[in-house]
């Protein structure tokens, strides 16, 4: 067919493949890397309750929740990775305090006291919201944010927010 030397041809192909593989090696990075540490700050707060507490059977759980987004419906309560949740709070008290010792740094847009009113997984509703500064606060790494707000049982916030 032609006068090419078979050995030379095979060598050429061999070198070509080696070059291709070498290029492949050089072009590769090391893939997945740990993301930057977002850092953690501290949220301290106090809440004051006004009005009459709901019946005890509707107080299955009570927590302070701070969200880095504004929820649009109850399915957004699944976004556990974008919210901070306090330990359970006391019920039937005039005021209470809460602390989140390791809150992810960032801006929180929707925060307040959440009440679990039924046994269903998503039977949560807001009782009262932090509203200063438009309800927005920022947690900076290594620093503490202090907030306070009022829960008025006679004037619960509308959910989902408009």
């Amino acid at each position, binding site marked *: *067919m*032609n006068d*090419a030397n*078979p050995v030379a*041809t*095979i060598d050429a*192909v*061999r070198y070509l*493949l080696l070059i291709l*593989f070498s290029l*492949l*090696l050089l072009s*590769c*990075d*090391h*893939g*997945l*890397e*740990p*993301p930057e*540490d977002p850092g953690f700050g501290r949220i301290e707060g106090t809440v004051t309750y006004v009005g009459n507490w709901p019946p005890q059977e509707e107080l299955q*759980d009570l*927590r302070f929740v701070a969200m880095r987004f504004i929820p649009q*419906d*109850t*399915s957004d309560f*699944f*976004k*556990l*990775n974008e919210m901070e*949740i*306090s*330990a*359970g709070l006391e019920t039937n008290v005039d005021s209470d305090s809460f602390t989140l010792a390791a809150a992810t740094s960032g801006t929180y847009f929707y925060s307040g006291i959440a009440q*679990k009113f039924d046994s*269903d*997984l*998503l039977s949560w509703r807001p009782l009262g919201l932090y509203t200063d500064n438009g309800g927005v606060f920022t947690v900076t790494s290594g620093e503490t944010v202090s907030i306070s707000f009022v829960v008025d049982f006679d004037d619960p916030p509308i959910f989902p927010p408009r």
Partner: protein
Amino acid sequence: MLLALTFCPLARGQDTSGIVSGNVSDEDGAAIPGVNVVVEGTLIGAATNVEGHFRIEQVPSGTLVLKFSAIGFFDDRRTVRIQPGEEVTVSVVLQQKILLADEVVVSAARREQPALSVPVSVSILSADDLLRRNTIVLDDALRTVSGVHILGNQINIRGSSGFAYNTGSRVLLMLDGMPLLTPDSDGIPLEALPTTEIERVEVLKGPGSALYGSGALGGVINVVTRDMPDTPVTTVKTFAGVWDPVRHKVWRDGWSHGDDYRPFWGVSASHSTMRSPEFGWWTSLTFRRDAGFKALSGRDVFHGFAKMSWRPRPSLKLETLVGMMARQRDNFIFWNSARDVLNPGRVSFGEDASTTDDAPEGTLDDFVRQISVLPVLTHFINSKVFYEVRLRGFGTLVQPLDNDTGKRKDLSDGTMGARYGGEFQGNWIPNNDRRVVLGLSRDAITTKSSFFVTNDGDALGGQPEIAVFTHVEEQLTPSLQLVGGLRFDRYRIDASDTESRLSPKLSLAYQWRAQNTLRLAWGHGFRVPSFAERFTDNRDFLPIVRNLELRPETSQSVEAGIRGVAAVQQIGVVSWDVSIFRNTYQEFIEPRLVTAEQAFQFINLDEASILGAETMLEWRTRSGSLQASVGYTYLSSEESSTGEDLPFRPRHHITTTLEAALIGSLRAGADFRYTSVPDKIESDFARFVTDAEVMVDTRVLDLRLSSVQGPFRIAALVNNALEYHYVDRPALLGDPRSFTLQITWTR
């Protein structure tokens, strides 16, 4: 009369004859001795000498056809016109029959046939492929197959499966032609396969439901175990290696063993023999231990297999394959975060919202036992009719382990299940151009699991199925083959619900110039939802609710492709397979977060489609001293109702392999695979699991070096040599770099 004279040389006088002479060579120009050259239709002929030369005298004048044939080469014919007293010279180049033409598959048509001529896409992994890569679990080797993409242990063929939390598979695993899916999730029990005893693995791409029913919606993987050798063979294989600590200090610092080289090792022994011309067997035992490169990811696995073959007379054969596997493992489900990939995460939800210590962890440690019994009877009634009776039994017991004590919990907290059934397959070969298969199949599943709540309150939910199938092959012309198939399946979903499906298929294979096959295939597929997809109701890890309304999904596939092989002068042997395909799915089953249910649920999507193309190119020198292959798969998927991509379907998937003989028996090899980040990553999982939406391209290079010294084969392997970190499935780090030494002794 003229014809009679032409083809009856003895009736003609010498004065009317002539001489034909010439040379026969291969594609490289080398002379081929011993080629039979005959005047077709006569006994006149000669054979080539050592220089490839032939000379035939007393050839009747006229127009004649010369037929050239030799062992190892394809036949060739030449038409010559010869005048009385004339000498005609003919030079012929014969095409060598090469490896691909000799490869056989059984899964394409339930019978052995040359891989080159099957009218469907099929890839083959040989026993040598598995040995060279130190394949411990089959998915290690399947990752090198073009068009196969594995997410976790979920196998995708051409994007069929995506990622469905390891519940339900659109790929059917078969062991020696018999289905082998777990009774609970229809998962593929890759660890329950005898990797040391595999003859080959056939990967059939595209719906196989017309032959194999539900489960074969996206394709079929058929693991064929080896036959008994003529002389006894004993093999002992050991391997040991270490996981390299991960590259990033942040990750290593998160786990107390993050800076350690974590060991893994294993040993397997097998023996096979023919005790007599009628009876033979092989058996293998394997144990392996892996400490795991991340927290709570260790595993111990022990499995044993035996195959017996008894042929009391030439027309009757009984084969039985028995297998068992016991595995204790830490099942790492998802990471803590992309900054803490070596530790399992926690789900904080509802009552556990305070992230207390009793919140569920991202692990599900368990002790699993599996057993399989697969007898096959083959009886040849005569040369045209034979039948096979196959029985199958596959059982699974899963006991969760207590996270604190490590002790096994009661079976009532886990799963026990069995698949059992059998089939009859009659084969009729009326002539060389026609084959007919007719079969009947019956299967059932019995599963009891703490994760499932079945519809009718039956603790042992059953999913019996009966099917009849037929498959017809018709050789329309010497070059054109038509294949048709039809299968009718009827499933009982529960006490009040049955489903029926008819799965037809039709394909054409056109073969020309002996080593090229053009194929066109069309087929329907379907899949009944698995127990796990339909009945899982559990909130221990993620909120998942059952969906009693879940219907079977169906698919329709069209494919055009060409497969060929050629010996190219001075280059070697080149083979290729190029195909384009379109798979459309109706009632496609995918997991979704359903707001109304406040949980994940498997639901039927209206319609989805996957359009794609696949190319495979292989090359090797004639001596086999150097071989290389590259495969590329392109996928474009769409969910019709939203117009968006289907999640977890990477658009580009590339596999490459290079093997080279160095000095003496020393050989080197490399596999590289690239998978692009899926265009769409299902994000609902990331609502619970931190950074579950994080994915990167996959670029993994595996290197190996091996040498044979007497009865020993010694191999060194470096897997993921580039130390490239990727995500094996959402929120799970893929295997980091590892170093393995493997020694195999064979007598």
